[in-house]
């Protein structure tokens, strides 16, 4: 029997640009042309001022560890516990859920506010997931 696979995102027309970006190693965010608000997750209008004039741009990939849990329970398919489910605050402002790689999955190693940088995990031809690792330097 095949190993159960981790949950795979299925892009929609409004999010396709984000998933196209991760495939080529870019973390793409959107910025409102009217009020300059930067937001996530993707949508074709600004959730702050409702303008439909928004632009996609490549984010820095920098951020910090905002909060997390370390799951010890029977894991989601494709995961081996214990593993951290983290929320990263990006330098541009929005937050996103992620996993932290290249780091022990322990409270000692996962220090709140630690600097992080984006990395990319290819799941298959269609989906590459943004994950984060401790920033170098």
């Amino acid at each position, binding site marked *: 029997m095949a190993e159960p696979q981790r949950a795979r995102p*299925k892009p929609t027309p409004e999010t396709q640009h984000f998933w196209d970006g991760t495939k080529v190693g870019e973390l793409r965010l959107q910025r409102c042309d009217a009020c300059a608000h930067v937001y996530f997750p993707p949508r074709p209008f600004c959730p702050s001022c409702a303008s439909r004039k928004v632009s996609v741009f490549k984010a820095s990939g920098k951020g910090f560890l905002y909060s*997390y*849990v370390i*799951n*010890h329970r029977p894991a989601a398919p494709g995961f081996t516990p*214990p593993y951290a*489910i983290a*929320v990263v605050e990006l330098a541009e402002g929005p*937050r996103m859920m992620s996993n932290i790689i290249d780091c022990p999955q322990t409270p000692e190693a996962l220090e*709140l506010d630690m600097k992080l940088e984006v990395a990319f995990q290819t799941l298959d031809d269609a989906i590459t997931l943004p994950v984060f690792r401790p920033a170098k330097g």
Partner: protein
Amino acid sequence: MRRNQVAVVGAAETTELGVIPDMSQLQLHADAALNAIADAGLKLSDIDGFATAVETPQQVCHYLGIKPTWVDGTSVGGCSFMLHVRHAAAAIEAGLCKTVLITHAESGKSMIGKQPRFTAPDSLNGQFESPYGVYGPPSMFPIPVLRFMKTYGITHEQLAAVAVVQREWAAKNPRAMMKEPITVADVLNSRMIAYPFRLLQCCLVTDGGGALILTSADRAGDFPRKPIYIMGTGESVETPMVSQMETFNSSRAFKVAGSLAFKEAGIAHEDVDHLMIYDAFAHLPLFGLGDLGFMPYEETGSFIADGNTRPGGKLPLNTNGGGLSYMHSGMYGMYALQESVRQMRGTAPAQVPNAKISVCHGVGGMFAASGTIVFTNER
């Protein structure tokens, strides 16, 4: 909405709580409904308004044989029933119906007749949260807590004390699932579930249900039970994606719902004799005490750890034992409402002497939604 114009005249839980493998989820709704109807001295045919969550109103109305002129299927998680109370009160005041039945039931443990929860891979949660290994409430609901603790200097011992104090209340309640006394050390040594939360900081998983019957305050004197008036209500939603909350230092939905309810009731915090804060996990009473404005967030941890919410304390909190020790079928809001009504009727197993105002605060869908109801036993 005007205060004290609508009253609870029937309230009951399912005949059994806990592990009920011989009843489907739908039958649990009926069991709770029939108990509440008997409590109110009514017949099913007297019910002309109906609200429920997860199960559809049409499903439960058909099963019970109710012919409503007003229905509400608001389903925003475990606080849906607080919202139903608010909506029902408005509907009764508007003359859309006279006698509303609200039911909740869940076969959370036995999973009989319960539809599985499913996150679609093309939903926002399915795209931007599920791929990172979230797996049910224990791996999602506590995600904000480490940030909250760091911001406000809350310790692990203070967080553990929430479970300890609630167990003290549960020990006084014959219907509570878990009654053995526990210590902070017991909590901190219990099995790790999702750091920083251990087993005793997570809610139970059980079967059961409850139902309420509301009518106009002008009619409420004709019922066998002492009427419990709806003094103030509030509701809001924020986001189904825990990662997208405005901040992890607070719940916006808590603040909006709570402040609306306090304002409508026209009460100050020192007027509150009894408080319920939906405790699916141990951090929620801390968020609730801060977001409802009882005290600065920094003080919430020591307030509970110092015993202010325990039996005999100045702010009795979660007096049935809460979701951590009383029962939690998956949607706890109905049980919090039931305990507020019992306290206001003067019939709670751990009765707060002379309590006149009870605040019942709910949360739903992790931090997605919130509802607050202020009850009083004086018109």
